[in-house]
């Protein structure tokens, strides 16, 4: 279980997160929606401390970090429990697909090399890249790179995987293959928090939808609560703007 309490973040005088409370159950797939600039990326980055929250508390399982005064060890432990898939993939460019996936296992988790290789190959096969083990990122399409990114996150066997708009840097024809991979791993009961603008995908795959605007959670609930019968005016406005007429009017 993941519990965020009163997460607050300011950049200088700009307050980007204004006290976020969120509980994510084990195995849940959470979709975070919201207009651009509402603080979605910042929230994800606070969870693994790529961004230092100004205040609040992060709990993963029985491990709690008080964001006011975290120790180096707290941050390290937190990062050990999380993994991230980036909008721009952020693969290590001087390493092959296989080395990208192995890197965390070998360097951080100190898994023995042969074992790491075996597990990494298995994961790359799972995301459909069994034939690209030795390709460098510059030799892969965006969709393939992002699938390597997903395998790299899976390899760490984290409590939660954080996805920041995993398909928005992709050409439209490549979006499908990446979403398919995420759908697949969602079935395995891995906890995931996904920031996305793919409404159809969010509706199908998520079992918990969160709508954010201007640094607060405006509304959250089951996909149908949000997509079919939103209560807040801001949510309605947002969905109206972003979804084509009639798609979710069942």
């Amino acid at each position, binding site marked *: 279980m993941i519990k965020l309490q009163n997460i607050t973040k300011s950049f200088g005088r700009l307050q980007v997160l204004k006290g976020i409370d969120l509980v994510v159950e084990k195995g849940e797939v959470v979709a975070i929606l919201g207009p651009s600039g509402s603080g979605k990326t910042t929230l994800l980055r606070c969870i*693994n401390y790529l961004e230092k929250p100004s205040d609040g508390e992060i709990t993963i399982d029985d491990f709690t970090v008080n964001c006011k005064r975290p120790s180096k060890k707290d941050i*390290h432990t937190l990062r050990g429990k999380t993994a991230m898939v980036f909008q721009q993939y*952020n693969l290590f*460019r*001087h390493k092959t697909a296989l080395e990208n996936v192995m*890197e*965390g296992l070998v360097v951080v988790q100190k898994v023995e090399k042969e074992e790491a290789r075996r597990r990494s190959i298995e994961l790359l096969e799972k995301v459909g890249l069994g034939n690209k083990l030795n390709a*460098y990122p*510059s030799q892969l399409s965006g969709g393939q790179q992002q699938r390597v990114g997903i395998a*790299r996150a899976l390899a760490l066997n984290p409590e939660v995987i954080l996805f920041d708009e995993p398909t928005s840097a992709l050409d439209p024809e490549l979006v499908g293959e990446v979403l398919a991979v995420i759908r697949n791993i969602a079935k395995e009961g891995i906890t995931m928090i996904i920031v996305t603008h793919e409404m159809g995908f969010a509706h199908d795959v998520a079992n918990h939808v969160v709508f954010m605007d201007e640094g607060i959670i405006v509304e959250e609930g089951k996909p149908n609560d949000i997509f079919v019968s939103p209560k807040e005016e801001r949510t309605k406005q947002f969905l109206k703007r972003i979804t084509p007429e009639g798609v979710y009017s069942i």
Partner: protein
Amino acid sequence: MIVGLGVGFLAALPRLYRIPVLQSLSKLYASFFRGTPILIQLFLFYYGLPEVLKLQGIDLSRVPVLVFVIATYGLNVGAYISEGIRSAVTSVDRGQIEAAYAVGMNGLQAFRRIVLPQALAIAIPIFANVTIGTLKDTSLAFTLGVMELTSKARSLGLLAQHFMEAYIGLAIIYLMISLLLERAFQFIERRMLRHEQPISSSKQARSFKLWQKRRPAPDASLNKGGQ
């Protein structure tokens, strides 16, 4: 050159990690050595420094000339190298470092495993320019009376009254060493950048294109070649 690498690396660190006072010092150091001619630096070190130190009661008159020459070249090369390292490291994109942290690496691991290998590959052409430039600059040390290639040629020339032959021979030697170094650096560069080369295509053409596309970064002022 080796001295220069060491000095350059040390001088680059404060600015990469934004260490307050040292950062400005390293900036000052780099702009001094990059902004003044090596000949003046040699003179300053060889003639000026002993005078200043004598006032403090330190006597340098028995230190061999070569030491001054090596120290000056070391500091000079270090200035260029530190700029090169700095621009190479900053051109490794931030996203990969964040990915390294997200995977759970600490700062040192991220630097050693992710940043450094890529930065070195990017910095190779800069190192090449500096090395070859410095090689040619060694002829200036002659003015301090150190026996190096140029002065050897000159004494030979005096003896034999064959100036032209001696200097032409010298030019050829410099040229050969330069070409050899250039080749060596090209080879290293290609090896270290092999991850940027799409599998099927004429290697040289592609690596050049990628070079232009991916890193306009290391600025032109780093080209030191010839003075």
